[in-house]
């Protein structure tokens, strides 16, 4: 709207200055300039023999390997196995994290019983439990799923509990004055008030879920993206290893987008979300 010259009052009013260079709608494309350049360099380095293709497959080989894995249905199969582990693990984490979070958040008794215990357990890095889990659950699916569930349950519990306790007491008071019952206060004030925090926890939980999956799938798996990677290592197939890594990255990204989408819908009232429109 305002001209190209940036007058001082315009700046003082906080009008964002126009960036120089690429026009605005190319702003998103601009972010990919450096990654694409890096890929090109990588490819060139491999073709010129600067980097051994045995140790690091070039992007072209990775793409070819990916295509092969897709065409043969192998990738789809292993992906489905991995996704299933995450889905089951996350579901368990959600049920456990949400019910314990509600129990501790909504009642003092619940807090005394649950919170202190969980805070102690939280001090333990959950990946350190792998040897015990293997002893208890064996090296099959149960261990992998338990690992995902353990990793994801804590962030869900912690943020939900914190979110519930962080609800503005002035709003709780207003609810009481305007005649809400305890159930009404929980439903109309406490739960929606805790939701932003809880969604941060969900995003974090998804992150740890992938991490647990990576670790879990390196334990004697016979299927899954992790198995694909470990198997490829035996045959020095760095192209397949890199395909596996890319899949992990894409899954992580997809999960993040999913939570963002939920946030946009569920937290439409927040000014930061309003501003994005």
């Amino acid at each position, binding site marked *: 709207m305002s001209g190209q010259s940036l007058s001082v009052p315009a700046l003082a009013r906080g009008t964002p200055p126009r960036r120089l260079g690429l026009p605005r709608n190319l702003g998103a494309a601009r972010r990919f300039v450096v990654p694409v350049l890096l890929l090109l360099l990588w490819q060139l380095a491999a073709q010129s023999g600067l980097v051994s293709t045995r140790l690091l497959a070039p992007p072209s080989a990775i793409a070819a390997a990916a295509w092969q894995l897709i065409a043969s249905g192998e990738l789809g199969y292993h992906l489905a196995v991995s996704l299933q582990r995450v889905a089951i693990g996350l579901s368990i984490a959600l049920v456990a994290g949400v019910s314990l979070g509600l129990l501790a958040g909504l009642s003092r008794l619940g807090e005394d019983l649950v919170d202190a215990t969980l805070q102690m357990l939280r001090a333990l890095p959950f990946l350190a439990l792998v040897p015990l889990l293997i002893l208890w659950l064996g090296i099959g699916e149960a261990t992998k799923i338990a690992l995902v569930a353990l990793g994801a349950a804590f962030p869900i519990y912690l943020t939900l509990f914190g979110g519930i306790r962080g609800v503005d007491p*002035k*709003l709780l*008071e*207003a*609810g*009481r*004055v*305007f*005649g*809400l019952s305890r159930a*009404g206060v929980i439903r*109309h*004030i406490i739960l*929606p*008030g805790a*939701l932003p925090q809880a969604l941060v926890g969900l995003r974090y939980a998804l992150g740890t879920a992938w991490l647990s999956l990576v670790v879990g799938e390196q334990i004697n798996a016979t299927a899954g993206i992790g198995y694909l990677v470990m198997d490829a290592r035996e045959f020095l197939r760095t192209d397949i290893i890199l395909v596996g890594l890319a899949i992990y990255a894409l899954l992580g990204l997809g999960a993040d987008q999913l939570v963002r989408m939920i946030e946009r819908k569920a*937290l*439409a*009232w*927040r*000014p930061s979300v*309003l501003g994005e429109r």
Partner: protein
Amino acid sequence: MPDPVLRLSRFTRRFHGPAAPPVLDRLDLTIPAGEFVALLGRSGSGKTTLLRTLAGLDPVTEGTASLPARRAVVFQEPRLLPWKPVWRNVALGLPGEAAVTRQRALAALQEVELSHRATAWPLTLSGGEAQRVGLARALVREPELLLLDEPFAALDALTRLRMQSLVGELWQRHRPAVLLVTHDVEEALLLADRVLVLAAGRLVEDLAVDLPRPRRRAAAAFDTLRVRLLATLGVDENGHDATARAA
């Protein structure tokens, strides 16, 4: 004289245990139905403490209080639920069918001239609009006693003037008994039938304001009352602390 909606007798409130000095000390207060009462007092004199008890937020431990069943509060901050659109905030906690409460909420919003913002998110409202929603949320309950805790304190001077006349109009239309806590002597004299001053835990002034409505600040009688109230509050006309100067 109409029946009182509110009766406090020897009401005492202490924080920090029964031996602590009281913030409110054996207060007696009766407010008849439909009367507009303003409560003045220095910062920390216990105005909010009194109002919280009348709202039912704090228990009565010493003395007795009889309160009407239908009470409503407008707080100093709007205290709207940011995750509910404006009209749902107004309808919050109303008993009855959804369609009916929605109609009532919309009617209340119309009274505060905010129909066009009924579906907006509270965080997009201006300070004055948010306070008007707070007012609508109180009005929709058809209170017998309306408690206002410095509802205009955070607003700019012009918005405050508009809000004051809005409150005056709404009171004349619905006739709840009102207890308005304020720091502003002129605001009290513009709106109230009766002005109370709270100091050291006691009501040290109970002044009937018999000026014709609508009131004019320029009127001589208005000024006389203003000077008198300022003196009770310990402030002289130029805003200096009279007690401090005397010392």
